[in-house]
C-alpha cells in the first residue's frame, strides 16, 4: 500500500510540480481537475493512507467507508464554498398529484443543508452547529424560509441541489439553495432562508462576536451570492398579519410524534404542512404551490395545539377600492387582475389556547400544468 505523507491537495500539487515531469503526469493531472473534488482532508479518514489521494478523485466514486462517504451523491464544490448533492425522489415522497410534495422539497433542502455543515466538519447532530457554538450553547434557529418551485419533480426523478451560506446583517446568516433537474440541467426551484443564533438555555436570540462567525464564514462565498438576485423579489416581501375575516381555517392541529425532530421540537417542515391544512380541496385539486414564504416567530412544543388560518392576500389599496367605489362594503378581496389562474394567500399559525402567533406566511398557487 503506497503511503503519501501529504494531507491535502495543495501539498500533492507541490510534490508533483517538483518532479518536473508534467507530461507523464497528464492523466493524473486531469483527474485532479475533475469537478466535485473534495478539497479538505476529512479527519475521520486517517485510517486510509491513500485517502488524501482519494479525496482528489471525484466524490461520486464513493471509495472508502468513512462516515462522511455514505451513499451520498454529494460533496463540496471545487472552490469549497458550496455543496451539491443529488437526490432521487421516492414513491412515499410523492403526493396526491403524483409529484413531490412541498414538504419533500423542504426536507431535502434541510438535508442538504445539514450535509453541507457536516462535510465542512461541523457537528454530526444534523443541526450544523460549529464547535464554538456548541461550547457557548448556541443553536441555529430559522427566522424565515422562502421556497419557489417552478417544476415539481416526479417519482424517480433525480434532482441536484446546491447550497451555500452567507452573512446576513448583524446577527443573521442566510442559506440559499438552487435545485436542478439532473438530466435537463434546468433550474426547477430556488430557496433562501434566514437564520439567527439562539441561546439554547435562555431561548433568546443572541448577537455573536465576529470570531464565532468566522468559524463558519470561512466556508461561505466571499462575494455575495444570492439565489434570488433580482430586485424586489418575493423572498424579501413583508408578510402582513392576517386580519379578520379569515377565509379558511383548520383548528386543533396537534404535533404527532413523527413531527418531532431529534431534539423533540416540532420540526420546521411540519409548519409547512400545517399552513397547507387550511387550504381548501378545490385549490389543492386544481392548483400547485408556486411559492411559499414563512416567518417563524415562536416555537411550538409537542403538547401545544395549533390553529391554521388562511385568507386571501389583498393587493395594495384594493381594500379601499372595494369599500369606496359603489358605497357598499364588498367582502371579497381581489387577487391580481391579470392572473386569474394564480391565487395568493396569507396564513397565520397560532396557538389555540391564547392566540399567540407561531408563524405567518404567504403562498402563491398556479394552475396545475397538464403532464
Amino acid at each position: 500500500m503506497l503511503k503519501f505523507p501529504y494531507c491535502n491537495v495543495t501539498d500533492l500539487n507541490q510534490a508533483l510540480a517538483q518532479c518536473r515531469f508534467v507530461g507523464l503526469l497528464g492523466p493524473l493531472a486531469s483527474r485532479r481537475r475533475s469537478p466535485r473534488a473534495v478539497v479538505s482532508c476529512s479527519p475521520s479518514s486517517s485510517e486510509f493512507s491513500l485517502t488524501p489521494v482519494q479525496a482528489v478523485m471525484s466524490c461520486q466514486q464513493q471509495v472508502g467507508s468513512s462516515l462522511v462517504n455514505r451513499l451520498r451523491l454529494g460533496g463540496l464544490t471545487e472552490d469549497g464554498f458550496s455543496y451539491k448533492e443529488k437526490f432521487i425522489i421516492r414513491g412515499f415522497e410523492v403526493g396526491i398529484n403524483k409529484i413531490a410534495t412541498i414538504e419533500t422539497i423542504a426536507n431535502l433542502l434541510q438535508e442538504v443543508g445539514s450535509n453541507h455543515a457536516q462535510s465542512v466538519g461541523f457537528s454530526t447532530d444534523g443541526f450544523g452547529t460549529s464547535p464554538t457554538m456548541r461550547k457557548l450553547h448556541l443553536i441555529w434557529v430559522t427566522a424565515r424560509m422562502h421556497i419557489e418551485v417552478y417544476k415539481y419533480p416526479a417519482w424517480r426523478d433525480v434532482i441536484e441541489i446546491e447550497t451555500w451560506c452567507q452573512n446576513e446583517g448583524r446577527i443573521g446568516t442566510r442559506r440559499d439553495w438552487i435545485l436542478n433537474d439532473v438530466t435537463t440541467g434546468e433550474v426547477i426551484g430556488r430557496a433562501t432562508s434566514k437564520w439567527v443564533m439562539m441561546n439554547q438555555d435562555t431561548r433568546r436570540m443572541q448577537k455573536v462576536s465576529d470570531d464565532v462567525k468566522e468559524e463558519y464564514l470561512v466556508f461561505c462565498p466571499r462575494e455575495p451570492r444570492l439565489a434570488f438576485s433580482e430586485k424586489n423579489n418575493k423572498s424579501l416581501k413583508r408578510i402582513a398579519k392576517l386580519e379578520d375575516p379569515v377565509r379558511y381555517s383548520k383548528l386543533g392541529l396537534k404535533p404527532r410524534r413523527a413531527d418531532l425532530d431529534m431534539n423533540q421540537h416540532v420540526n420546521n417542515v411540519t409548519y409547512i404542512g400545517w399552513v397547507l391544512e387550511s387550504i381548501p380541496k378545490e385549490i389543492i385539486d386544481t392548483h400547485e404551490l408556486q411559492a411559499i414564504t414563512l416567518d417563524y416567530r415562536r416555537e411550538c412544543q409537542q403538547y401545544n395545539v395549533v390553529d391554521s388560518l388562511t385568507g386571501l392576500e389583498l393587493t395594495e389599496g384594493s381594500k379601499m377600492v372595494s369599500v369606496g367605489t359603489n358605497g357598499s362594503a364588498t367582502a371579497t378581496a381581489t387577487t391580481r387582475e391579470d392572473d386569474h389562474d394564480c391565487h395568493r394567500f396569507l396564513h397565520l399559525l397560532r396557538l389555540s389556547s391564547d392566540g399567540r402567533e407561531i408563524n405567518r406566511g404567504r403562498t402563491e398557487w398556479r394552475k396545475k400544468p397538464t403532464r
Partner: protein
Amino acid sequence: MVATAAASSFFPITSSPDSIDSKNKKLGNGSTNLGGIKLKPSASSGSLQVKANAQAPPKINGTTVVMTPVEGFTSEDAASSLPPRTFINQLPDWSMLLAAITTIFLAAEKQWMMLDWKPRRPDMLIDPFGIGRIVQDGLVFRQNFSIRSYEIGADRTASIETLMNHLQETAINHCKSAGLLGDGFGATPGMCKKNLIWVVTRMQVVVDRYPTWGDVVQVDTWVSASGKNGMRRDWLVSNSKTGEILTRASSVWVMMNKLTRRLSKIPEEVRGEIEPHFMNSDPVVAEDNRKLVKLDDSTAQYVRKGLTPRWSDLDVNQHVNNVKYVGWILESTPLGIVESHELCSMTLEYRRECGRDSVLQSLTAVSGVGNLGNMGEIECQHLLQLEEGSEIVRGRTQWRPKNAKSFGKMDQVPAQSA
C-alpha cells in the same frame, strides 16, 4: 452536458450476456431459501459485481443514462531498456531517476485504478441513485436507501414509518421491475382486465436494530404463494456496510374485486402471470398466529380521538397511506413507553381504508409486561377505528427497553423500568 456528467459518475460495467436475466421467468426451481440463510450482502454482491448489468440501463428522469467506459490504463514501459552500466553511465542517471519516479506514480495510479475495479460497496456504484434492481435468479428485488436526517425521529434513530416506507417502496418497485405493474399499483394486466386488485390484510415487522442517520440499508424483497389464493411478500433489511440484519417483515395479500369489494380467487390467467415470480421460501418472520383482540372503550386504557388525515398522509389514490396508520397507532401508546422503549415487533391486520374526511380514534391497552421471557419487554394491543365505529386496523406491538441491544445480549437490561 449534464447527462454526460451524470454518466461519467457511474462505475463502468461491462455487460455480460450470461448475467442474471430478469426477463427469464423461471418457475422457482432450485430457488434459494432465504428464510434459512443469513444474508451476507457483501459476499453475494461481490459475485454479482461483474454480472450486475442485468436489466435495461436505468432511466433517470425519463431518459436512459449511458454508461461510458473509463479509459483503459496503459502501463508505460518506462524501465524496460536501460543502457549498460559503463563508467559514463554510472554517473547519476537521470533516466533511472525518471523511471523510478514514474514507476512510483504509475503504480499509484494503478492502485487508484484498482480501487475503481474493486469497490468496497459494489451495490452503491452499480445502483448509485438507489433505484433498485432484480437479483438472485430474477426473484428478489434489492434496493438501497440512505437514511436521511429528516427520517430520524425523536429517538434519534430512523422511525418505524421510515422503515415501512422503504418496504412499501421496494414492493412497488419490484412489481414495476418485474413487469407486474399493469394499470394500477401492483395489479397485473390480467388483473386489471377483471377489476382485481391486491389488498394487504396482514403485516408483521420485527426490528432487531434501527438504523441511524447516514446508514445505508439494503432492502431485499420477494413474493411467494400464501395458501391457494393469497400472496405473501417478505422483506429483509440489512445494513449495507456490515451485512447485519436490521429488520424482517412479512405481509399477506389477497385478491379483491375493486368494484364489488369481494374477495376473489386467483384466475388462471393471473396465476400464469404471477407464479413465475414466486419464490419457494419459508416466511422470513415466524408467523404470530395469536388472535388480535378488538378493543373498546372499556378495555382500552388509552384513547386518542380526533385524528384527521393531513394532505401529506394521502397517497395517489387519495386514500390514507398504509404507513400512516402506524403513526396513529403510536399516538395513543403512552408516552412513558414510547420514550423509554423501542418498538421491536408489530403485527397489523388491515380491515378498511380511510380518506381525507375521516375522523379516527386510536385505542391502546397494555397487555403484558415482562412476559415472553424477556425482562422489561412490554406488549400492547391496538385498535384504530373511525369515530363512528368502523375498524381500520387492529394491531399488537412489542417494545423492548432502549439500548438493550447495544449491550449485545438479549437478557441484559438496564435498571430503569418503563
